[in-house]
């Protein structure tokens, strides 16, 4: 209360200009409980989130773990030169972009379709049960999911059994052993794991559509499909546009766990993405500098993408949402 009253009138007082700093500290003293409640975590944020940013300097050094953090040799942009002349880096970059694009497109289409179809279900109990079940794979770990997927795709797994029974294949296919299947398997796995979860936001958006629109369409003689195409989908348009743009900002985030857990020596040319590249160079080969350079490249490019996505979304949002 006291603080609230202080906030506005003091600015008008003639002394205010000279003692703004003093005023700030007076207020701070009044709010010392809030300061005590938040400062430990601000320090935590600095230590665990901002200090590692300073660690980016490693990418301009020839980092040797045995030496102290301040006795390292500086090499300028050498690590980046090496990175951009490395063929495997471009392959990794290609894999990253292809996999996240597949995830983006498949993820969007399946979630929107499922959300619309769920919305069309008239049995409320049934709808609720389907929704609950569809959230399940999102909550289980990728380790469990990868176990499930690799046993389903094993030579004697259910996928091969079904395909054989339907006479689509003569003998079992080693799904996880061929590089050209990997992207498809990864996309399907992501859909299996997250499609239910991704419907949440669309279902919430559908509930904001004015029901009288459906009634009007009904009177005009629109059938079910026409109502979906001309009312539900346009109603979702703004959410779709915003989410799509925001996700374009994450194009270098293709995930780490599914590729790491489902990939193997036979598929490495297709499964290795930027995150695995960093892990491989950094932790397995001990080339901290090169790994940090690759990681820094990813974060900086992502940030630029995200900023532009954000501003595009804002511009579109102002002209289309309101």
């Amino acid at each position: 209360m006291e603080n609230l009253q202080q906030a506005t009138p003091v600015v008008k007082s003639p002394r205010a200009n000279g003692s703004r700093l003093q005023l700030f500290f007076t207020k701070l003293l009044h709010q010392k409980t809030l300061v005590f409640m938040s400062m430990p975590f601000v320090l935590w944020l600095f230590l665990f989130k901002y200090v590692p940013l300073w660690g980016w300097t490693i990418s301009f050094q020839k980092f040797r773990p045995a030496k102290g953090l301040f006795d390292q040799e500086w090499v300028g942009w050498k690590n980046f030169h090496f990175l951009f002349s490395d063929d495997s880096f471009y392959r990794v970059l290609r894999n990253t972009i292809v996999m996240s694009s597949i995830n983006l497109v498949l993820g969007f289409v399946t979630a929107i379709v499922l959300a619309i179809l769920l919305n069309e279900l008239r049995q409320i109990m049934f709808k609720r049960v389907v929704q609950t079940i569809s959230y399940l794979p999102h909550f289980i770990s990728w380790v469990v999911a990868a176990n499930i997927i690799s046993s389903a795709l094993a030579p004697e797994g259910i996928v091969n059994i079904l395909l054989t029974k339907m006479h689509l294949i003569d003998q079992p296919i080693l799904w996880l052993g061929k590089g050209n299947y990997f992207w498809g398997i990864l996309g399907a796995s992501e859909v299996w794991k997250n499609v239910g979860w991704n419907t949440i936001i669309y279902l919430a958006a559908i509930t904001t559509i004015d029901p009288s629109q459906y009634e009007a369409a009904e009177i005009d003689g629109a059938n079910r499909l026409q109502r979906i195409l001309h009312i539900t989908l346009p109603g979702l348009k703004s959410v779709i546009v915003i989410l799509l743009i925001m996700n374009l900002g994450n194009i270098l985030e293709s995930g780490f766990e599914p590729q790491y857990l489902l990939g193997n020596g036979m598929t490495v040319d297709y499964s290795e993405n930027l995150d695995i590249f960093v892990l491989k160079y950094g932790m397995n080969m001990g080339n901290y500098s090169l790994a940090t350079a690759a990681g820094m490249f990813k974060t900086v490019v992502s940030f630029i993408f995200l900023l532009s996505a954000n501003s595009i979304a804002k511009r579109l949002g102002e002209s289309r949402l309101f």
Partner: protein
Amino acid sequence: MKESSAKARYNSIPDKIFDISNIVFMLLVVTITLYPFLNMFALSFNDANDSIRGGIYAWPRMWTWDNYRYIFNEASIYHATLISALRTIIGTITSVFCTAMLAYTISRQEYVLRKFVTVIAIFTMYFSGGLIPGYLLIKELHMINSFWVYIIPGIIGVFNMIVIRSFIEGLPDGIMESAKIDGAGDFITFMRIVLPLTVPALATVSLFVAVYQWNSWFDVFLYNSSHLNLSTLQYELMKILQTSNTAASSTNAGDQFAAGQSGVTAVTPTSIRATMTIIASLPIIMVYPFLQKYFVKGMTVGGVKG
């Protein structure tokens, strides 16, 4: 009224066809989602040697508890399950409490450092030092080979903080005002008034944190892989997955080898894998349906704000 008009509206034949095919499609979705779990369940309760013959789909053929008995007699797996449970409980309580406290401070409009703290926190959502600098920091802090590396580096979740803050800001102002008039300080207000009123948001965030903690294996791999005492269930399962991926391309071959090696009563890699999969997913399956209405709300709030 809405019901009756809906009934009249949807009774044409094409609509019925649409409804029925929609239901069939949904049943297909449910089957594809659930079948893999059912298959793992069946394998985990089926006699391991019998499973080698194949043909186990959604239900066990020869019921047995042997696989579970074997797993829990294996000291390392038993211990790993314990560590998983411990990090889930401690990690969730500390993280939710601290995140809620920080969220409370930045929800106070009068707090002079409000903007500063908010910006400092939100910036970290877009920028991170990445794997190697993070690893070196943990090493410098001597947190490698310790249990606390599971708890401390994740104690604040910025996304979760936003979810809780939005919820607190939605509470009626009068409640906190009257607490202040009664002489309650900020900490007392937070503990006695805000925390109890924020339960729906806290439930959502607790679920997210608990699931994250229970499912983690990468921090074990990165920081504690040389320290078996601190291994978790998911990490043990990850190691099994890796060996089965690299050792034999066909799991059956591995099974037959194992069975031949150790006589008739042995368990096989397939049944161990299935049993651990069920143990690793069971706590989640038992908890998340009851929190559904909370996390659906939390997601839409976070989605719009974030």
